């Protein structure tokens, strides 16, 4: 996906593209949940449903050769940066055709060709990697930028503060994107996060923005501006995107009543859904009819079905591969 060269207003074409990509993520995740429930997937996974506007808004403002680092809740980032559902499903199932030959699984998908340096199962663990990629871009005189996705839970990790300091000192082209979905696993972030989130990056001299993560157009516009700054050599920034995780911390986290109410969940689904919000806007602006939006959804659904069939049919790696790729 490419961003418009200048200006941050979202036109019909880009909005429709983003609608399609968000729909693809939603359907992918619903299918991933189904794979878990039907015991076809080894282990478990962390669903991105509800947060699609953040990944798609951010990645739509990036070039293919820009880098991202992702999290344990990373399928949305991966798809938004251009990955194919089939090879992703194959990775979730531990198949050789997966992005990591089945060695990474849901929490470690990397797609180097599309600039995805990998999901990371250590909370905040990729902050250094993204900052290093930005350092590399600057040192090599390339105009690439690096985006570090992390949840608000990573605000508890010291590494983030170490690298924001260096990014600012050396004016590195990195954007730290904090997806605040309100919950550090099973604990509301306000119980474990003192002070103001944006005061943290500001203390290091980073440019900051706060955005409604359910409004993909707003996420895109804010990111496009920060990317332009970074490419121009103006240094690092921090984007706080407020969003919500519809499902549990992971697919097995079904009884959530001890940390949040069903009413709260329903409110976000009914009133703050990023797909519904963009769909309404597209119709209001007469960029698309309801029929056209349903067609986009059908196309995404068939892409998911094809990808799933590919992954289910794909063979497991031969056990002899276990010792391959430890060293180059």
């Amino acid at each position, binding site marked *: 996906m490419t961003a418009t060269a200048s200006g941050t207003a979202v036109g019909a074409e880009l909005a429709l593209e983003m609608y399609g990509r968000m729909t693809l993520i939603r359907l992918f995740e619903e299918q991933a949940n189904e794979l878990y429930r039907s015991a076809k997937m080894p282990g478990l996974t962390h669903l991105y449903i509800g947060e699609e506007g953040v990944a798609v808004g951010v990645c739509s403002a990036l070039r293919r050769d820009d880098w991202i680092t992702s999290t344990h809740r990373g399928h949305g980032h991966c798809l938004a940066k251009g990955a194919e559902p089939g090879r992703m499903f194959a990775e979730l199932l531990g198949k050789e055709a997966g992005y*990591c030959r089945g060695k990474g699984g849901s929490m470690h998908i990397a797609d180097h060709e599309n600039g995805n340096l990998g999901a990371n199962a250590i909370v905040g663990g990729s902050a250094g990697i993204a900052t290093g990629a930005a350092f590399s871009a600057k040192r090599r005189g390339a105009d690439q930028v690096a985006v570090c996705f992390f949840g608000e839970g990573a605000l508890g990790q010291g590494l983030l503060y170490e690298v924001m300091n260096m990014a600012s000192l050396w004016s590195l082209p990195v954007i730290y994107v904090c997806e605040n979905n309100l919950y550090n696993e099973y604990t509301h972030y306000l119980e474990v996060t003192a002070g103001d989130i944006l005061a943290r990056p500001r203390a290091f001299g980073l440019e900051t923005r706060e955005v409604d993560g359910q409004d993909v157009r707003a996420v895109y516009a804010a990111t496009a501006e920060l990317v332009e700054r970074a490419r121009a050599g103006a240094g690092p920034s921090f984007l706080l995107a407020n969003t919500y995780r519809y499902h549990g911390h992971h697919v097995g986290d079904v009884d959530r009543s001890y940390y949040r109410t069903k009413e709260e969940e329903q409110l976000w689904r009914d009133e703050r859904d990023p797909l519904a919000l963009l769909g309404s806007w597209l119709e209001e602006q007469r960029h698309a009819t309801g029929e056209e939006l349903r067609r986009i959804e059908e196309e995404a659904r068939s892409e998911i079905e094809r990808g799933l069939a590919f992954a289910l049919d794909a063979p497991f790696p031969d056990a002899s591969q276990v010792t391959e790729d430890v060293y180059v």
Partner: protein
Amino acid sequence: MSSAPSAQVVLELTFAQAINAALKEELARDPAVFILGEDVAEAGTPFKVLAGLVEEFGPERVLDSPISEAGITGLGVGAAMTGLRPVVDIMFGDFLTLVMDQLANQAAKTHYMSGGKLNVPLTLRTTMGATRRSAAQHSQSLHAWVAHVPGLKVVLPSTPADAKGLLKTAIRDDNPVVFIEDKMDYAVKGEVPDGEYTIPFGVADVKRPGEDVTVVATSSMVRVALAAAEQLEAEGISAEVIDPRTLVPLDVNGLVSSAQKTGRAIVVDEGHRGYGASAELAAVIAEGAFWGLDAPVRRLAALDVPIPFSPPLEDATVPTPDLVAQTARELVRG
């Protein structure tokens, strides 16, 4: 040594000068190489190992960092994944505790977890070794911690010549390499071939040939073993001192062959004894040379205590030439 010049000019360099020469040559050879660490530029590190490099290559390639060990290691991992060859300087090996997630969970696993698509050509230089009167948090030898993590290579040079050739190999390696220098070695002098050469990983070096007992020694313990071998020679015991030089990859055949030849083996290593590098080296020899051994393999290592400050206490924690010689006598004379 590989690719050594045929008409060799030999220089007398300290260990620190040899490290400096390797970095200088690699910085000059490859623009992707850069050094990142605390006080690495004008200060040239507290050990002065990097003296003169920032003057020659500039602050863009020899960067003073904040005191953020995890951060600089993480930045190094990301830079390595995207086309650079960082040499990250972690002043004291004790600070490996601070970088462990970035080293063990990120650098070591990235190539494997990505199914072989991403590489991390990172060199992390750090130090080891007691008896500098630096107490418990600046004296540890933690090489076993990193050698336990698949995906990392671990280098323990013992001479100036090895240090130079092995460091050049480390920087050119496409894997993450932990390169550990003994602080007590920095001032030690040795002969170093002038000019370009590298030393392959996984090739043990016989530092002194012998017939009666094999002493496998790492890092500064090689000097201890050689001093013991001198003592033993006067008593008519011929000790072979062999240095694995790299713990990962390990030259299993080299160690086993030596032990089979002499029939007796002692391992001397400055890490703690319990679950340490000496245990792994002894096990490798016991498994591979069992039927050729006349006696059990012996281990000499740092005592399993935090390194104390008081000199007589600290000196009691590490193997000495006398201890190595005494152990060899016990093995040879039964």
